[in-house]
């Protein structure tokens, strides 16, 4: 019995020691970090980035952001130090990770994805000397002197182009759309895509599905595949997805059915499996990499400005992919797409960004 008590005591004491050790450790790094930072600050800019659900390797949205980070790293070499973090699966610790980077003295921090909106709003207030870049999100009342810049895209314009491409290439007169989470951001893709298709062929039928109503919808390739298979089976021959890592399932379905998928965000022909490449018609490019890279560049050159930056067709912030795998597939429609692109840039075509604008657009077409 005595022995047991002794052991219990030893365990309790050692646990207590661990707790104190933990505290001590926690206190150490910041002081270390600040001295380091003071010493290095003149030359090194520290850039941090927190990914969205799906994370690096989603072959889509997050990988595009990573490409921008990589490009900056290559170009500015030892003038910058980069670090990227991934939130937990449910994304509960987004704010924690942002704060972690800010506390570690990172000068410029990106939140990749609209889900970061509230978190960046909060953390940016707590760390007024740190600059933030928010991709896809919108925070009200920002100006040039704010420490947040919202990097937004006109996804509907890029989607309009791939919608036109789908309508030009469809043989069945039926095309599909698979969205990730049902939110206004993804509905922008849908509205642009449908408008682009109807612009080419007013009689075209568009089947549209969403995977879910939570962030999980961006990493559920099982459902992505099932929905795409359903659309192919009901007659669609081209399916466009805007669903992050779930889109892996959509491309898988297209290859299995020998029909076409249209990728999103990154050029997905380049990252697909060898035998899937012939079944990717093109990809809607959302140049998150350009947004990340140009913000880092501005920061290093001392031109960082808070507020809003919008990347559309005119800024080459969105577009469609042409590569060695799909060149032969779409070479015949490229002139037509370029013509449409010009019209959008000039403002002759007003691309709808939501359901009600889409209805308006359809009425305009009929006239």
């Amino acid at each position: 019995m005595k022995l047991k008590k002794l052991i219990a005591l030893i365990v309790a004491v050692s646990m207590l020691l661990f707790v104190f050790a933990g505290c001590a450790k926690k206190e150490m790094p910041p002081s270390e970090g600040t001295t380091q930072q003071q010493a290095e600050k003149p030359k090194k800019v520290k850039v941090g980035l927190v990914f969205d659900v799906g994370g690096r390797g989603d072959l889509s949205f997050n990988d595009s952001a990573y490409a921008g980070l990589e490009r900056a790293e290559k170009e500015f070499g030892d003038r910058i130090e980069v670090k990227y973090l991934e939130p937990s699966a449910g994304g509960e610790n987004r704010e924690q990770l942002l704060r972690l980077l800010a506390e570690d003295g990172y000068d410029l921090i990106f939140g990749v994805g609209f889900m970061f909106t509230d978190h960046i709003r909060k953390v940016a207030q707590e760390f007024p000397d740190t600059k933030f870049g928010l991709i896809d999100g919108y925070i009200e009342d920002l100006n040039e002197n704010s420490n947040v810049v919202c990097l937004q895209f006109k996804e509907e314009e890029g989607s309009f182009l791939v919608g036109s491409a789908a309508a030009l290439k469809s043989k069945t007169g039926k095309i599909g759309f698979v969205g990730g989470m049902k939110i206004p951001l993804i509905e922008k893709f849908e509205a642009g895509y449908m408008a682009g298709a109807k612009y080419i062929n007013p009689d075209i039928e568009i089947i549209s599905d969403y995977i879910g109503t939570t962030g999980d919808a961006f990493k559920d390739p099982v459902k992505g595949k099932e929905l795409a298979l359903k659309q192919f089976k009901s007659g669609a021959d081209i399916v466009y997805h805007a669903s992050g890592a779930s889109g892996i399932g959509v491309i898988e379905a297209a290859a299995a059915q020998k029909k076409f998928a249209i990728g999103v965000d990154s050029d997905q022909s380049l990252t697909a499996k060898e035998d899937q490449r012939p079944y990717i018609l093109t990809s809607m490019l959302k140049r998150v990499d350009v947004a990340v890279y140009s913000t880092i560049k501005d920061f290093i050159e001392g031109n960082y400005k808070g507020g809003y930056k919008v990347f559309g067709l005119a800024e080459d912030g969105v577009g469609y992919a042409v590569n060695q795998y799909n060149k032969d597939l779409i070479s015949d429609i490229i002139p037509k797409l370029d013509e449409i692109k010009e019209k959008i840039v000039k403002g002759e075509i007003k691309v709808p960004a939501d359901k009600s604008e889409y209805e308006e657009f359809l009425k305009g077409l009929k006239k």
Partner: protein
Amino acid sequence: MDFIVELIASSLRMTVPILLTGIGAVYTERAGVVNIGLEGMMIVGSFWGALGSFYFGPYVGFLMGMSAGMALALIHAVASVTFRVNQIVSGVALNILAFGSSRFLSQVFFKMATTSPHVKGLRPVKIPVLGDTSPIIVLAFILVPFTAFILEKTVFGLRLKSVGENPLAADTLGVNVFKFKYAGVLLSGLLAGLAGTYLSLEHTGMYVEGMTQGKGFIALAAMIFGNWTPYGTMWASLLFGFAESLSFRVVESNVIPYQFIKMIPYLLTLAVLAGVVRKSTPPAADGIPYEREMH
């Protein structure tokens, strides 16, 4: 006609991971051990399966996925059978361990925390009407009568059940209670690992973190719903799979809001559960750790 065939094929694909794990749950619960860690065993199955297939091809992938599930099950068995830890606590801990270790190892091996590169699956088999089908789907449905046979007709199965019903009596008759409990738990890990590997190798050809989407828990529900029997579990799994694939096919309209469509599987389940009033009879000693009394 096409629509119906496609609905059936899709239902089967959605059913299989639930069914495999559900049969696993039958084995472990019949031996009297509650295994809430099945979800975690599916997760490690999906990860290790992808890892094995990436380096050595799909067969090794399946072996590794199943072994990983079993390894996790072994921890559960050691904790809850040998050391009589609360079975729920042990299961929950395993789920967390599975999740964290998969992310960590994915970072180590694939240099990406949440996804693997593309991996190869098994060659599909041709089945009349349905066409190309994954062999695992066929295997899952063969396992149902096989499990029923094992549990009803073999010495192993009968002893396994006796351990879950009345371990003291079984022990008195010379049945090695611990051995059978271990066997039940390990089998459940093996099947859950197989189900996870099916998801990553056969369904999407890639591991994505969280791709199990709670199917391990649904499998537990299917097993309870199926009254701890293999056939019952099959019907329950089919219901879940069918409801899910049906929800893909109900088109959004102004009448039905989108969120309601996504509720269909759950509503259907509730309706059936409420409609089928049947006495559920779990094994009498389910979830109770067995301790040999020393006098």
